């Protein structure tokens, strides 16, 4: 018999190894479950839009889904919304997922965190709670979220989680309304020892409305936001360098590998490759889980480029671009099209990064950049 019974491996090594195997074997190891489409906030940028009357999965249906996912070898589960804490059965669902041995994360706006929820998360720790913080001041936060009184609730929720040492990160979607408070939000996070990230990419609504798009920054502001963060510039530089010379996938419209190891289940129980891609989908409540998964992967992988000559497939700036075919389908009705806002941001980023020596053509870095040489923010 083997004598090395068990080995202690770091989480990141383990995660990388499982993901590699999942892609090779076509296994669904990670899931996002949208517990509800409803939200107590009314953010103008939200992809969900105003709440609709829609049948949502019951507690029992979610339990059965989690059973099937565990059986199929799924390990990571993200509970999201809408606002997942709106569901009165959230504690039961969360605890059920934990006791099945899933590694559970939670996306929330934190305004509905109660001492009971915070105690639950302390006793049964999530892998991570990600809290959306839309402004540093009450005025801006409530302008973004459209609900009076919710700023104080959000801060209180964050504090309750922090007091209990729940693993938590803050994140901000940057819009025209809160772009002036990013530095303050970062300071808020830093003072509390919390990691904070942001991005400025606002999608159209899933119902096709372009209403959220009016809150987008300009490409100039997006790139200025990049330049405000040395760590972000460094990440772009590395991505650009790594991508240079990589093979272009002209066999699949949806070339990202995540659809080979992860999936999204909507509040109504439809399994999709991701949140942004409503079709193809299948009813995971009525069909066997693994059959649904395999059918979905086959359908997504079976979508072949109709226009392999399209500029996005061959663009030298693609590594600096948020181009996503699902987003393009939502924005333009065609997954093989460019999203103008994303495209213009990438072109500008490429131009500015070259000019400032953050990247070099060919993916090679110029002389090692001292972080101090990366310009300070001029967004706002």
């Amino acid at each position, binding site marked *: *018999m083997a004598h090395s*019974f*068990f*080995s*202690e491996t*770091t989480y990141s090594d383990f995660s990388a190894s499982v993901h590699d195997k999942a892609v090779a074997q076509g296994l669904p190891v990670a899931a996002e479950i949208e517990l509800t489409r409803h939200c107590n906030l009314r953010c103008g940028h939200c992809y969900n839009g105003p709440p609709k009357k829609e049948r949502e999965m019951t507690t029992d249906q979610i339990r059965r889904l989690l059973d099937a996912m565990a059986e199929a070898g799924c390990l990571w589960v993200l509970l999201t919304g809408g606002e997942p804490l709106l569901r009165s059965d959230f504690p039961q669902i969360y605890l059920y997922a934990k006791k099945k*041995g899933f590694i559970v994360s939670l996306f929330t706006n934190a305004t509905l965190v109660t001492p009971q929820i915070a105690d639950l998360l302390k*006793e049964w*720790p999530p892998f991570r709670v990600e809290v959306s913080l839309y402004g540093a001041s009450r005025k801006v936060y409530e302008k973004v979220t459209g609900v009076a009184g919710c700023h104080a609730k959000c801060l209180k929720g964050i504090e309750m989680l922090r007091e209990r040492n729940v693993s938590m990160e803050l994140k901000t979607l940057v819009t025209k309304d809160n772009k002036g408070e990013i530095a303050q939000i970062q300071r808020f996070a830093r003072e509390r020892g919390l990691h904070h990230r942001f991005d400025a990419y606002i999608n159209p609504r899933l119902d096709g409305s372009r209403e959220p798009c009016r809150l987008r920054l300009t490409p100039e502001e997006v790139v200025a936001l990049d330049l405000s963060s040395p760590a972000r510039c460094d990440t772009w530089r590395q991505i650009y360098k790594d991508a240079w010379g990589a093979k272009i996938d002209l066999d699949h419209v949806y070339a990202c590998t995540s659809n080979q190891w992860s999936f999204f289940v909507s509040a109504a129980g439809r399994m999709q490759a991701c949140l942004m891609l409503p079709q193809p989908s299948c009813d995971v409540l009525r069909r066997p889980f693994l059959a649904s998964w395999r059918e979905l992967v086959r359908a997504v992988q079976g979508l072949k480029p109709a226009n392999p000559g399209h500029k996005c497939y061959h663009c030298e700036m693609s590594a600096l671009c948020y181009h996503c075919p699902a987003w393009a389908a939502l924005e333009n009705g065609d997954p093989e099209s460019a999203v103008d806002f994303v495209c213009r941001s990438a072109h500008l980023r490429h131009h500015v990064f070259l000019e400032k020596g953050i990247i070099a053509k060919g993916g090679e870095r110029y002389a090692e950049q001292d972080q101090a040489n990366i310009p300070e923010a001029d967004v706002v």
Partner: protein
Amino acid sequence: MRLDAVYRRDPDIVFRKISGECILVPIRRRVGDLDNIYTLNETAARIWELIDGRRTLAEIRDALAAEFAVPVQEAERDLLEYLAALRACAAVKEGPA
């Protein structure tokens, strides 16, 4: 350790088989830190299953010897070695389930 002893698994540690890897996932506060993951080899995974709060260590040893076709002494040595490691991280406790 007495071979007539019975051990039970900590209910706050869940055994999962993911992409062919057998792992132990701690789910409750005192073991919730996921800096490290314990992956089990085939023998360890089988021992974890057999520690059910009913079987004695002697019964588990005999089952291992039969299933893996190894001498009883070797199975016993491996069982006790692994059990000591599991006790050290409080993954098992003595006594019936």
